[in-house]
């Protein structure tokens, strides 16, 4: 039985195949998968089509957006073990930066993007510095509060539209042949995908180096991490700030696609759903998190034909799933190396891609 189970363990099989592959094959596989991702909007497969909503739009939001944000939240929750229940706040800050600067100044998308990311990071520092001395549940409550504060602040501030939000957000300027219009979600999807790939690449680099080890140590034993000379405060704030930056990117792109935003789009549900993506997919493992986000974003759209009961069905599926695989679909598992000659961190499966 145990033998059967291990032979069916596709994750380990896949990881082993990857590790044994020579560099050219890894590059070829990477290019192949990335190409599929870019070609997704052209697929017209009845299995993955979403009756009731436009498939290409679904790819951008929620699927692409959830994947991006789940990767960002995974830095905070998965890598450094900080429970953040107010992640949507950074998404909102990115989106509002795009909306305000886009409608009130002549700046275009590409100029606003770094400002939006910068503001999200700054708010990460401002929230993180005082609160990250808290642990576990206390931190969760404070971040939960922060998420709500940002939304309620937006509702009550008339100069940024109050509860009516902001309309008429400009689209990004044309990029070579890609025209960003409300009618065509494809360029937005490609833009988001490009950002996502870039972020995955950065996250994997960090995970294999000193910050990754520091986060591992903090997550496992905060006290010992300090006694081993890790400035735990600094690395926790960094995790927060990097997570915030990713959500900021998402917010800016989202606002430029949806053209009008209202505060209620940035409610607690988003924070919880993104966290669910991380936990459901496999906390700490970037591929698991991506899979979780894809499934959690896509399934409710796919079963839209069920109309009213679909959220109930979705909920039941979640509960069943978490009972069957409490660590997520693709849990993080460091395969051990018994080979005495093994001695590079780079090869531990957390190394660089491409």
């Amino acid at each position, binding site marked *: 039985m145990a033998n059967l189970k291990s032979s069916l363990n596709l994750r380990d099989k896949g990881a082993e195949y990857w590790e044994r592959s020579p560099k050219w094959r890894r590059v070829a596989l990477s290019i192949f998968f990335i190409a599929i991702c870019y070609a997704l909007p052209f697929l017209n497969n009845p299995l993955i089509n979403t009756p009731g909503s436009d498939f290409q739009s679904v790819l951008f939001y929620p699927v692409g957006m959830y994947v991006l944000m789940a990767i960002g939240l995974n830095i905070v929750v998965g890598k450094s073990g900080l429970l953040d229940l107010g992640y949507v706040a950074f998404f909102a800050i990115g989106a509002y930066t795009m909306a305000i600067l886009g409608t009130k100044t002549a700046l275009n998308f590409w100029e606003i993007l770094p400002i939006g990311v910068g503001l999200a990071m700054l708010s990460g520092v401002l929230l993180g510095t005082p609160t990250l001395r808290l642990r576990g549940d206390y931190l969760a409550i404070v971040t939960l509060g922060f998420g709500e504060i940002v939304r309620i602040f937006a509702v009550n501030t008339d100069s940024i539209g109050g509860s009516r939000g902001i309309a008429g957000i400009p689209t990004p300027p044309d990029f070579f042949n890609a025209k960003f219009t409300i009618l065509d979600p494809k360029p937005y999807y490609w833009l988001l995908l490009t950002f996502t790939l870039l972020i995955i690449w*950065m996250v994997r*680099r*960090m995970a294999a*180096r*000193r*910050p*990754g*080890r*520091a986060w*591992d*140590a903090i997550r*496992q*034993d905060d*006290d*010992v991490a*300090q*006694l*081993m*000379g*890790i*400035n*735990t405060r*600094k*690395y926790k704030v*960094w995790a927060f700030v*990097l997570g915030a930056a990713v959500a900021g990117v998402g917010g800016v792109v989202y606002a430029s696609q949806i053209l009008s935003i209202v505060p209620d789009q940035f409610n607690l549900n988003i924070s919880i759903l993104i966290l669910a993506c991380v936990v459901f997919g496999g906390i700490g493992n970037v591929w698991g998190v991506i899979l979780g986000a894809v499934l959690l974003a896509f399934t409710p759209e796919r079963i839209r034909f069920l109309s009213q009961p679909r959220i109930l069905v979705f909920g039941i599926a979640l509960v069943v799933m978490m009972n069957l695989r409490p660590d997520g679909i693709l849990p993080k598992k*460091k395969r*051990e*190396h*018994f*080979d*005495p000659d*093994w*001695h*590079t*961190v780079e090869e*531990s499966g957390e190394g660089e891609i491409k």
Partner: protein
Amino acid sequence: MSENVLELKNITMKFGGVTALNEVNLVVKKGEILALIGPNGAGKTTVFNVITGVYKPTSGDVVFQGESIVGIKRFKITKLGIARTFQNIRLFGESTALENVVTGADVHSKSGVVGAIFGTPRSRREEKANLARALELLDFMGIKKRAGQLGKNLPYGDQRRLEIARALATNPKLLLLDEPAAGFNPAEKVALAETIKKIRDAGYTVLLIEHDMSLIMGVSDRVAVLDFGTKIADGTTTEVQNDPRVIEAYLGAPADAS
């Protein structure tokens, strides 16, 4: 003659009404192995916690290489050059043995998050150097073959050795070992004593908490004895062995002649 690496000056540590340490004075000299012994609950681990900044002493001063380190953050104390192991093994169990040690070696690296993202030359250089140092230390502790295994899956003895390797990786001026031989069989204890001597001979200063008298008498240059939070003796192994207060602390007061 030899300079003092660490000085505890009149350290008192109170937890509410309990006095864990009472006016303790202790000097650790450069290049020696000092054993800190005493019955259970004497306050030995509390001394370690005060030195490493886990506790702030109620009164008194901790002077490390001529400077007071009371109130300094724990990670900075480690950077200054004090590293420790733990009585109850506290490894990063989900990380590999190698990663555990590299984490310790990271202390003196200059590159951080930004360097890692952009793969700066300094980051690459430091990663490489720390990896090499970690492997060297695993080899030194005789557990190189465990490099790729998770900390929690190592056999008990190797976990203790790994903790020492991780502490050594921070390149400490003073190494604190909290009962490194706990649970070892006699043969392992002999091997450990050799290792501790090797560590000293490599230029490290060692402060050691231990219960096993034969191990202590075998390795230590000096012995300090704590009893109920008070230092009752301090000297060479022979001096301490013959000190009546030490005998009393361990064996009880002799009954009055009656």
